[in-house]
């Protein structure tokens, strides 16, 4: 399978703090690649660096064979990357419909088909179509954020901890949605919930202290008690 996204030797500073100190990983087309690591390991910062929100000072990021390391955020996004941030980034005083509309590059048939698809996936959004985004429940906000990133014609979705703060039953729903979306896009997923990560991830990359320490197939990690205990505190 083709490599969709490649992150090589990336270093990132925020202010004077050296946050990322050598991150490497790859996302292959049609797969779900999971970023793992304890709190503060640099998972969110890695996603932000890919998007140019906290630009890399060293290293190279390529997407579909094109280097995007130093490009401005909107150019990176328009080349086909969608983002679901940790806090979901819902526009509170915009309705669900308007939230979706902001993300649409145009309103052609392809986009509308994508919209129909996500609305089937998350029927809740259809119910609250005219409701302000700020009034949605946590789970609904998560769904809206994912739907919104998806209709932006993105070939790659970066999803940051979708299970955070959600009830198990909602997590189940979100997880199924991701498995379904995987048929249409490539996904990079940050996930602390190992049960979820292990069920939907194809490959994993393990970050610690802003550095890639391990990567490989998810199946192998499931077997590897030692790594799991050392870096994730489980197993």
């Amino acid at each position, binding site marked *: 399978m083709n490599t969709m996204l490649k992150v090589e030797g990336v270093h990132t500073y925020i202010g004077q703090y050296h946050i990322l100190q050598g991150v490497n990983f790859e996302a292959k087309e049609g797969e779900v690649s999971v970023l793992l690591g304890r709190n503060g390991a640099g998972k969110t910062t890695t996603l932000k660096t890919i998007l140019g929100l906290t630009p890399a000072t060293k290293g190279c990021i390529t997407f579909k064979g094109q280097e995007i390391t130093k490009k401005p955020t909107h150019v990176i996004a328009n080349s086909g990357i969608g983002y679901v941030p940790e806090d979901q980034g819902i526009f509170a005083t*915009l309705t669900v419909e308007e939230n979706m509309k*902001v*993300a649409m590059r145009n309103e052609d048939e392809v986009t509308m088909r994508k919209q129909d698809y996500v609305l089937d996936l998350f029927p809740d959004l259809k119910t609250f179509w005219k409701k302000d985004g700020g009034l949605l429940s946590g789970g609904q906000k998560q769904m809206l954020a994912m739907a919104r990133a998806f209709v932006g014609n993105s070939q790659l979705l970066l999803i940051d901890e979708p299970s955070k703060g959600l009830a198990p039953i909602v997590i189940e729903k979100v997880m199924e949605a991701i498995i379904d979306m995987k048929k249409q896009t490539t996904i990079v997923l940050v996930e602390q919930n190992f049960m979820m990560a292990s069920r939907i991830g194809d490959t994993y990359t393990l970050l610690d202290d802003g550095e890639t320490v391990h990567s490989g197939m998810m199946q192998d990690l499931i077997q590897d008690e030692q790594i799991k205990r050392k870096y994730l505190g489980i197993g």
Partner: protein
Amino acid sequence: MELLLNLTINGLATGMLIFLLAAGLTLIFGLMDVLNFAHGGLFAWGAYSSVWFYSLTESFVIAILGAILTGIILGFITEKLIIKPVYGNHVQQILITLGFMLVLTEMLKVVFGPNQIAAKTPPYFVGSWEFGDVIIIKYRVFIIIVGFLVFGIFQYILKKTKIGLIVRAGVMNKEMVKTLGININNVFLYVFIAGAVLASLGGALMAPYSGVIYAEMGMEFAILGFIVVVIGGMGSFPGSLLAAVLVGLTGSYMAYYVPSLSLAVNMMIMAIVLIFRPQGLFRVKG
């Protein structure tokens, strides 16, 4: 009764002029996090350029269009040269926009001379309507109508168009807007120019209303604009209309009953709002 009505119309008209200035201020602040201390300069330039165009052509329409053109040009220059280089640094922004205010004001004196200039009301707005005892001055009504019209148009743009949607989204969360593939720098520029146009339109309408224009009018009105923006809530467009009307009316009533306190009362309102409800009456940001 007539007195009260007249004071009210007067206050509403003043309120609309302040609104035109404050609307840009509040949008620019909400979206770009920039408090533009030079905004009053754009207002004064609008006033001067409209008087200049009017003296040249005797056409009020051309005078207004001339002021709008001035607003576009100055807005463009200000955003590119003054705001952009210090984007994200609040202290520098405050310092530089105030410096630019100084330059704009002094430039007016260089170009148009340091003295007050008389501004004429176009013939068709001179005079008043009389209903029994009630005398309503035509030009004030015109200002009020324009004010509401501008509010309506902008409200429509903000609510119903894609660019308006993006602006409202940007006020809440700029980073997210960028990650949705939108070049927010362009949006900043458009919003800044729109704000400048509103301010210069306000200045142009102000000129015949007060009868004279002078360079310092920019700062005087800007202070009222700041008061309005604070009371209405930074970034809230409807909030600024409401607060502007409030400030205009307060000013008008106080100017009649206790003239020495009219500005003081408005500042008092602002101080109270800032101290007890710093987000303003209308809260915009999450």
